[in-house]
């Protein structure tokens, strides 16, 4: 039986980590803009290499 508790505990630890991550992501504004990140990732703004 012990193993069920251990693994359930592990599950809850992961659950807790996820909750922390979720709350942080909402509070820090990660979710404020759900449109532009999808477009911004397409542009790398790489500096063009110097032409010879």
């Amino acid at each position, binding site marked *: 039986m*012990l*193993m*069920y508790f*251990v*693994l359930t*505990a*592990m*599950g809850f*630890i*992961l*659950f*807790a*980590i*996820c909750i*922390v*991550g*979720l709350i*942080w*992501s909402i509070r*820090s*504004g*990660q*979710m404020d*803009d*759900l*449109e532009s*990140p*999808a*477009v*911004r*990732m*397409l542009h*790398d*703004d*790489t*500096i063009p*290499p110097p032409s010879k």
Partner: protein
Amino acid sequence: MSEPSTLPPDTIQFNDRIVRNFLIMTLVWGIVGLLVGVILALQLAGMGSSWDLGLGFLNQEWLGFGRLRPLHTNAVIFAFTGNAIFGGVYYSIQRLLKARLAFGKLVDFQFWSWNLIIVAAAITLPLGITTGKEYAELEWPIDIAIAVSWISFGAILFGTIYKRRERHLYVAIWFFIATWVGITMLHVVNSMEVPASMWKSYSLYSGVRDALVQWWYGHNAVAFFLTTPILGLMYYYLPKAAGRPVYSYRLSILHFWALVFIYIWAGPHHLLHTALPEWAQTLGVTFSIVLWMPSWAGMLNGLLTLRGAWDKVRSSPVLKFLVVSVTFYGMSTFEGPMMSLRNINALSHNTDWTIGHVHSGALGWVGFMCFGMTYWLIPTMYKTKLWSEKMANSHFWMATIGIVLYAITMWITGIMQGSMWFEFTDEGTLRYQDWMAMYTEGHIPFFYMVRMFGGLLYLTGAILALINIVQTMRNSNGLVEDSIQATPLIKDTCYATAYNEEMKDAETPREKFWAVHALVERWPFLLILLTTLALLFGGIIEIVPTMIQSTQVAVPNGIKPWTPLEMAGRDVYIREGCVNCHTQMVRTLRPETERYGPHTRPEEGVYDHPFLWGSKRTGPDLAREALIKSSTHGGNLWHWRHMYDPQLTSEGSVMPNYAHLYDTYMDEGDMDSLARKLTIWRDVLATPYDDCDVETVTREYDEQATLLVAELEGAMGDIVDVSVPENAKRTEIVALLAYLNKLGSHLKENGDTK
């Protein structure tokens, strides 16, 4: 937090060399892993054993199926996929976070350590050095090396996140973070093993407990090594290659959080109809079904990204690979929940169907993603075009036909096996009593040849990929590492500034507490990291003593610890990888109890460190071998001839021969280490042994072995095809026979054989 930085922008040069190195190793290890797979497929189709078509060399002891199979799985999962993940992650996070990879030296260390671990695996596994736990076969020193390399990966990932110049974390990064957190936890919990020597350890857990931990690990390794990182790669490389944003960013966020909250609970679906309590089985099934929804949300999100751009798929090999990959993700995440239904699982479990399912996932979803990504990355980084699009298209079609052939043949043989195992005659007896009859009547070797051909196509495609990529690099002007300009975020100012900012108005202790709290919140990933490590550490400290204590409690009726001889035989069983083809778990289903005997009960595994339930029945179940072979086949004599050459007893068998066990002797040194093992079992694993000194162990060993040999010679009579050598009592085969005699023997003593 969100005001723009006033600091001037500076130039950041990316570390792209390491990405290139990882991608090359992806292809190299991919070819190795696939090649081993093809060899295994040949062996299963009967090559190198029954129909030796000049392929007798496949019959070497270190090339036996049981030893090579873990090499195949480890090479494909940890070497091929692992290198692709690191390469793909390191390229994308630098662009997404606008930062060069943190800790330059550590990045190189991580590359070399990971690849040396794989070399170590490629050496130790064929030598028979294995823990016997599926997908976690590597022995304890390598396990520690994996942990070190993996923690380096975490440091690089979180270090780069910490010094980022882009406040928003794109969804792909969330998937990468989940990967790191998940695998760290799984690896630590499942790798708890007690070393008995430099290259031999025993799982800390035993029996049903070990099975539960193992499949909690096994299932979630699929989740956090073959799903979340690959999804992260999909959310980066699919939009990049298509040149358009992901269909719905909102949906991708939902996809992520739903997956990470649900996945961890689905593990028990690997243990349906076993000695695992039913409530745990039901929990696993329920969450498996629930998982289907977020998975398909992700698949649709990927496919819909290409809406209005399907014309690009026709012309771009990269997109072809990515589209098929996402399609296989959808297929596998439907097949998985379906196979976890109790009634379907009763038929599909232990058959080839499962093998087909994992290959749809590993070759279809993961493999196509890794190849597609590589075909996009190398030309992009080398500022050139792919050397031959035609060749890439040929690779695509070979791989697609290969995987389809593979999946279809495994459906056919899997469903056929399941049905034949379950088929009853009108009189109510099993229709296929004879295991070999199912092979011949089902024409299974033919389908195995088709499967081998599918694998061969996939392998050939991978070789084309390596040629194409190397040629692309050779025909370019060399790798040019990209640079960007970016302004630092305000949070990039040092800890001291942040500390002063938060603390300047705090006067009372209460205010100071909240100021510190706010400070920690500014480095959330540090917080998550510290919490994880603290919880894991605390967990381990708590678990270990209780685990050891609780094993002392249950000593079930009639179940005795392994004698020295049986222990030696069990180690041979583990070394030769018998568990890869033979289960030791009679499920609670009538056809199984009819065929093998009483179903396996939880307490039976109390001395099984590690559990050896297995997951595939290429050969029959062995949990009741002592009952079956003693009553119908003349016991030891049958095993003696069978193991020397399986054709003597089972014509057409694809089992390799184990002739090398007949001239390998246990010497004094082996007796020494056997005594040491027993001592460790007594002292650490709480097994009730009295005397574990070398003299006692040797005496008990020889006594039992002498009896067995005498019984064997007595049974032999006129049969002289496999003679008994001199000093036979010390051969490894006799130890193995003693172990097989033990399986289920407690039922005989209890008179409980039905």
